[in-house]
């Protein structure tokens, strides 16, 4: 079982792609914050990235089968911590998401994603039947739904929503009767309006409305989208240059080093820069999917597919938001946005993918 993990077998292309994305992220964080109170964020990000590499290494070391075996504990721990966060966590931006001190704190929900990935992987591999039966579906839905509900209550709708694609990808790969698929779609269609009126907070409703028509409230909730589109558009083909984007530098762009980092990047590096970075993400995701294809077993495949899906979802929602094609949900761009939890979680996922890859010749 051991001993075939050499550095040579490491997924170097994936690591290099991730490093390239991280570097561009650091550059953009520097550019967006160099003359603000956040100046210095870029080297903190560098520290987080280094920590991310270490985390990736650890995530590679422990056999994923072992991790799958510990799912009940990991899952219980996750739920307990989420409840703990809810009860004792730090409040910022009207929401309790973090644990730790003000100088060093982690967003628990980011790491719960990993547990969800492992949970879905194990659940799917343990299925006795060819296809998902209704009972299995409901059980898995409940297992994913509980942490999701807790995260929603923080409230952090964006992160909670990232758990859904993991579940969806698992179900999709495992296979589902078309009747069930239709039933799920119908239920979702019925639940959505109910959710809009009873679950969503006013600002979330406003975000949705402004996504549909940003100009309806240009100074309010539509402001971020409008400013982001202006930033992106004014970048044109070649961009305005590092530290030269007026939208970014003049702080018209909200949080240009966090959720809207790609908007800032698009303003300063133009369409060419956008193509390069989206290309890097595409290759990175392809690499992960390729690892899914060559996974030694179903569990490994489910893990890789779960990770590919959740990363794809992040890119879709974050980048889509930047160009006004997705509502503002406040989820970060993996590997680029400033933030320790974001970076660590992303590297842990890449570590899991590597973990699967390193064990592909076993058995």
């Amino acid at each position, binding site marked *: 079982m*051991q001993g075939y993990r050499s550095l040579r077998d490491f997924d170097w292309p994936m690591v290099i792609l991730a490093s390239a994305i991280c570097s561009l992220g650091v550059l953009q964080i520097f550019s967006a914050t160099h003359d603000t109170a956040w100046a210095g964020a870029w080297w903190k990000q560098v520290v987080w990235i280094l920590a991310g590499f270490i985390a990736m290494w650890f995530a590679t070391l*422990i*056999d994923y*089968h*072992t991790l*799958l*075996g510990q799912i009940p504990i990991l899952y219980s721990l996750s739920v307990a911590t989420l409840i703990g966060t809810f009860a004792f966590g730090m409040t910022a931006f009207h929401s309790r998401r973090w644990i730790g001190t003000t100088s060093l704190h982690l967003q628990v929900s980011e790491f719960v994603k990993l547990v969800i990935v492992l949970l879905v992987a194990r659940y799917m*591999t*343990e299925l006795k039947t060819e296809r998902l039966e209704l009972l299995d579906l409901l059980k898995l839905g409940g297992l994913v739904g509980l942490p999701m509900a807790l995260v929603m209550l923080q409230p952090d709708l964006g992160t909670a929503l990232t758990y859904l694609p993991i579940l969806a*990808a698992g179900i*999709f*790969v495992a*296979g589902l009767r078309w009747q069930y698929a239709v039933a799920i779609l119908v239920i979702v269609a019925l639940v959505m309006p109910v959710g809009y009126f009873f679950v969503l907070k006013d600002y979330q409703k406003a975000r949705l409305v402004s996504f549909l028509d940003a100009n309806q409230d240009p100074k309010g909730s539509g402001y971020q989208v409008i*400013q982001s*589109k*202006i*930033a*992106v*558009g*004014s*970048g*044109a*083909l070649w961009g305005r240059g590092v530290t030269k984007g*007026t*939208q970014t*530098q*003049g*702080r*018209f762009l909200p949080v240009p080093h966090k959720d809207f980092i790609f908007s800032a990047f*698009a303003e300063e590096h*133009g*369409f060419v820069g*956008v*193509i390069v970075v*989206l290309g890097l993400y*595409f290759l990175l*995701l*392809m690499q992960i*999917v390729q690892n*899914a*294809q060559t*996974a*030694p*077993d*179903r*569990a490994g*495949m489910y893990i890789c*597919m779960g990770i*590919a*899906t959740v990363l*794809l979802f992040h*890119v*879709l929602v974050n*980048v*889509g938001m*930047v*160009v*006004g*094609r997705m509502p503002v949900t406040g989820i970060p761009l993996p590997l680029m946005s400033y933030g320790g939890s974001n970076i660590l979680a992303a590297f842990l996922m890449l570590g899991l993918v590597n973990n699967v890859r390193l064990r592909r010749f076993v*058995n």
Partner: protein
Amino acid sequence: MTHPDREEERQLSANRLLRDDTKFASGKIAFFQYVMVAIFLFLVTGFWDLQIRYPEVYQERAERNSIKSIPVLAPRGKILDRDGRVIVDNHSSFSLFLSREDLKMEHLKPIAEGLSLDYDALVARVHRFQTRGAPQYEPIMIKDELTPAELAFVESHKDPDTFPELEVIHVQRRLYPRDGLAAHAIGYVGEVSEVELNTPEFARFHQGDVIGKDGIERQYNDTLMGVDGQRRVEVDSFGNQRRLPEDEDKDKEAVPGKNLQLTIDLDLQAVAELAMENRRGAVVAIDPRNGEVLAMVSRPAFDPNLFASRIRSKDWKELIDNKDHPLLNRAIQAQQAPGSTFKPMMALAGLETGVINDNFIIHCPGGATFYNHYYACHLKGGHGTVELHKGIVQSCDVFFYNVGNRLGIDRIAEYADKVGLGHKTGIDLPHEAEGIVPSTKWKIRNFREKWYAGETISVAIGQGATTVTPIQLANYVGGLAIGGMWFQPHMTKETPIPPARRVEFNPDNIRKVIDGMYGVVNEGGTGGRARIPGIEVCGKTGTAQLASREVLKSAKAAGENMKANAWFVGFAPRDNPEIVVAALWENGEEGPWVAPIVRDVLKAYFDKKVRLGEPRPQIAGIPRLLTPTAASEPANP
């Protein structure tokens, strides 16, 4: 991992992984890859739309976000006197503007309260700017001359969360002489009004522009007014200035207004102002050789600084309601009967037409009857035997009744017109009044009535319907003094003026009139108070009754001030005259009493020449008149 429990656990789970064949999923993974491609294409098209298809739209909006135009107000040109001394200057002050890009109407109330402005007036003002359709970047000036306390209020409230529309701009504000020195001649500036903007003269200005409203400031507004520029700065979303934009060529430099040199002599002006004291009236001094106005005083005066950009309604009301009409420039706008100052013209007309000559003598018993009406002379005892010279020197009314009666009204009007009475002099100041020289035509045109010969008698001594302005009077006597040549009076050195208007009079006749005026001052005449030892001052007094004696009596009973207006017009020297001064004292009662004012100005003029080392004019035994050719080239004093 070597822990036995863990190992067991792993084995268990490995056993549960019954189907480790992943082939079944390959199709689904491929499908996932297609979805990925679709999603990335979907995202790329988003960027394509924004960055490749319509980048200009967003670049323009980014610029609108970050580039803020700040107006740079051009200072007005200074106004200088003939020696280059500054009469009207500018001084630095801070004005508060509302930037219309960030303007929120609900902020107006707290802003008005914080700066103790009238809220309703402020709202009305903002509305006016918005309905006028001025460019959005043009901010609205709401307060000038900010005090340190007001500046502090603005500085502490102009952050983006409070009142981002507040903007303090450094401006050059007009600074006029204190005590209203030359206030009427200079005029004042003010913000162009709504009414003015709708007139063709002002249509080219923008709401909020500060323009000349009266006097020189209005007449030469185009020279004095600069062209405002604008500076562009890059700001962040909090309104803080970040840096200057790279394309500085889009900035517009402010072009300051040009300085304007007047013909006014500050020394003479000051003397004339002082000499007038608080009398209601006017003083005008002109160089008859070229028409340059050396001094122009109108009393009561006002403080033009009140107008410097926007006058408070309280101050405005005070000026408007004042029964003495301080805003009236009496030097060019007071139309009063000339009284006896009309007589030199009458004498000339009589001589030129031949209705009188050196042998024409009348007897003045203190009055005379014409057309069944008794006309009194101002000297109740009468002047006895009067010929032309004595007639002028003693200002004998009876003598001129006879002259007038012989001339008839239309010949009087003809000669009055020839010497420049009854129409505008054309001075380069706004709102000059015309005055009236009655004639048969005039009466028909204005009253649809024929002229009665009896009316001529009053006109002959400058009464009746006759009115003149001080500038007309100075102009008429000055032109006569240099031999019958009239230069258009003007206020600036640079303005081109039309060539002198020459009227062919017999020089001998003119000399006789001037000799008479010399006598008025120097031979025991009515203007003795204007005498200056060593200088041949010539002049003529005038006492113009405001109504007939019968009306006066009843008015006096009613306690109304119906005192006569006092005039004096004088020039010096008799030979080659250099300066002519006319003074009007409304309700001054007696012409002789105003003569000292003219004397003071004349004396100041000649004293200054001495001070500058120029010789006093020679006293010639025989008055010599300027020959028309010599006078057509105006000499600089």
